[in-house]
């Protein structure tokens, strides 16, 4: 059976996923070797059970991200923090040094063109957490891929190692923030 791989998109800009697509022709090779069981680029609604590896982009910024992070951990053997936002909070966490109410006022009231209103529990969008957090502050993480975004080569290296049943230990050249 092929390894079951998932990718998830939490509080990030999707840049890490774009970098994943930068694997270019290697994607074809990958498609033959793995089953992509869940991803923003696959039309699957629920995060499945029994996943071998999940790459998680983005910080944990809201209630939905948090719930998702726990589901991912429960259902995945290996969890990879995918990119700087998942690893450090990065840009997603830049709001953290301001009180949440100030951040919300700025985005939903001061800068609103129409209908200024701060989303509350009666609005069906996820509630922001008080601070956005790196993934490992919420769930156990097994591997960190750095960079904003990680390069396609770095992603390829990590995936190739995983496909050989190894937990990737990234060579120092791949340890690059920013």
């Amino acid at each position, binding site marked *: 059976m092929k390894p079951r791989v998932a990718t998830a998109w939490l509080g990030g800009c999707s840049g890490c996923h774009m970098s994943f697509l930068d694997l270019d022709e290697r994607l074809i090779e990958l498609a033959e070797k793995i089953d992509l069981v869940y991803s923003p680029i696959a039309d699957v609604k629920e995060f499945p059970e029994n996943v071998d590896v999940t790459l998680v982009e983005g910080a944990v910024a809201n209630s939905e991200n948090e719930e998702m992070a726990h589901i991912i951990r429960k259902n995945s053997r290996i969890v990879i923090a995918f990119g700087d936002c998942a690893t*450090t909070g*990065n*840009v997603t966490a*830049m709001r*953290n*040094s301001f009180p949440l109410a100030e951040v919300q006022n700025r985005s939903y009231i001061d800068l609103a063109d129409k209908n200024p209103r701060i989303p509350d529990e009666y609005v069906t969008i996820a509630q922001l957490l008080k*601070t956005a957090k*790196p993934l490992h502050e919420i769930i156990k993480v097994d591997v960190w891929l750095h960079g*904003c975004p990680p390069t396609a080569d770095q992603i390829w290296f990590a995936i190739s190692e995983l496909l050989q049943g190894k937990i990737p230990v990234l060579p120092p050249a791949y340890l690059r923030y*920013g």
Partner: protein
Amino acid sequence: MSVITFIIDDEHYSAKEGDTILQVTRDNKIHIPTLCYLDGLSTFGACRLCVVEIEGSPKLFPACTTKPTEGMIVRTKTDRLKRYRRMIVELLASEGNHQCAVCVVNGHCELQNLAYEVGLDHVRFPYLFPHKSLDATHKEFVMDRNRCVLCTRCVRVCHEVEGAHVWDIAGRGINCEIIADLNQPWGTSESCTSCGKCVRVCPTGALFEKGASIGEMQKERGFIKFIVNARNKSEWVHTAHEEE
């Protein structure tokens, strides 16, 4: 002048009286990570990245302020030292606000390089995300306290080399901050000559030139040693650049 013979990582070395352990390691191309130390400025011994072990003592000693004695046995690369150095970088990272992806010195930053050196794949301490100010009132330069690691290089260079003494440290412990003059906007400082020395010695993106965009700010730090040498010894020569 008397010469001291001592041991670093199982090899024998000699030091001139008054040399620190760090000077001897640098002269002999032994790498010890440093952050607050800068050739040409007074030693401050604050960052503790340069810690070494000395046989016979359970304590760790900063190589930049410790002088060797005859027969001393120094170790610079033990697992314990590596563990502590990584922890120091983790604390520095978690106490500031560092978003390398949008930082002016991305790719040319001493803190980043230290993170790579200690293999910092993630920070195990909770990030504090402190509320820090950014002062863009100076006509040429910006002070972004989010990126400051409190190495005090700016304080020392402005006082010791430029002679203006614009910068000081205010507050205590984790609330320490670098302030201009009497804790006022930099742009209103009457003592600042706008020489730019503080900007050039700052190891991080805390001090930078206006107009620099992401990754554009590169620093040059060897000039301090050149100036100090010229002043003290009337030798107008560029000595071999210190490692950065």
